[in-house]
């Protein structure tokens, strides 16, 4: 008896794959009508990251950078808060009161105006592309966690996880949404240059 069970056990042991799928989730922009002009953006509100075919990273068209330096620069850019943001829920445009940045007038106005544009070449390696994406998402999660720790004494990751487990808890959900609204993830993946 035990022999047969062992045999079956070994079969299932060998065939089992217990991989959990993980990844970076992203929502693609909807297809735009080509006749509609894209909205004009102030240059200071856009942080352009360009990755060329040699996998070099160029920021705002003038500074070469290592992947490891990227996160800090992005955080500085998003968290700058020099001016008024877009109106939230129909309220008057207001300053970013939760930002801790330098309020440099030459950098972004408000987290909900700050746009990160990721340009890449067709020949860029996927590994580098993901590394850059990872740093961009990482910058946002650092900021969200910081804000969440300050407001609710817990990290945003924890809040989001708990809210996922308990979808009926409205106050928790409101907290998560609030933080998401205060640091919205605006990453634009431009079409690569040919």
């Amino acid at each position, binding site marked *: 008896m035990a022999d047969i069970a062992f045999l*079956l056990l070994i079969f299932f042991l060998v065939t089992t794959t217990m991989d959990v799928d993980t990844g970076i*989730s992203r929502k693609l922009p909807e297809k735009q009508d080509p006749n509609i002009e894209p909205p004009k953006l102030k240059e200071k509100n856009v942080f352009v990251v360009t990755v060329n075919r040699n996998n070099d990273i160029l920021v705002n068209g003038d500074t070469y950078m290592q992947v490891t330096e990227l996160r800090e620069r992005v955080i500085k850019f998003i968290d700058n808060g020099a001016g008024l943001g877009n109106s939230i829920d129909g309220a008057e445009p207001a300053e970013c009161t939760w930002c801790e940045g330098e309020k440099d007038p030459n950098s972004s106005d408000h987290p909900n105006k700050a746009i990160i544009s990721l340009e890449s070449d067709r*020949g860029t390696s996927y590994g580098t592309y993901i590394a850059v994406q990872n740093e961009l998402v990482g910058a946002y999660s650092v900021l969200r966690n910081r804000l969440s720790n300050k407001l609710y004494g817990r990290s945003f990751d924890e809040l989001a996880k708990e809210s996922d487990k308990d979808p009926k808890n409205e106050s928790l959900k409101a907290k998560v949404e609030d933080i998401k609204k205060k640091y919205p993830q605006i990453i634009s993946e431009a079409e690569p240059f040919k």
Partner: protein
Amino acid sequence: MPGISTASLPDIVFMLLFFFMVSTVMRETELKIKLKLPFATEVQKLERKSLVSYIYVGKVGDQTGDKIQLNDRIADVSDVKYFVFAERESHPEDEVPLLTTSIKADIESSVGTITDIKEELRNVDALKINYSTRKGDIQGNLKK
């Protein structure tokens, strides 16, 4: 001193057997491409696997250029939309907006191929995507 009684051995083995039988997921598609996922630290778990469809990108054997694998065969970029339609067909209507496409691309594939796929997905309004990654240090992504 008497030896350890092995009378309960079958019970233990059966228990393990049932555990593995229940937790086993048989691999549905056979990979034809070489796949080494890139690393990332800011990863999220993909919930509800039944709503996720996979597009694989990588090299076949020693051939140059990236190939796209849908289900069990190598396909062209233009087939992606039919793949999405088929995927929608097989789910009830209320689940269609929740469908996610997971792009499992090799670490060495080029961004151009991925962009072509993303463009196709945008054309058919399959906007929820996920770049599949392994958890790990991003330094592993960079070529030495």
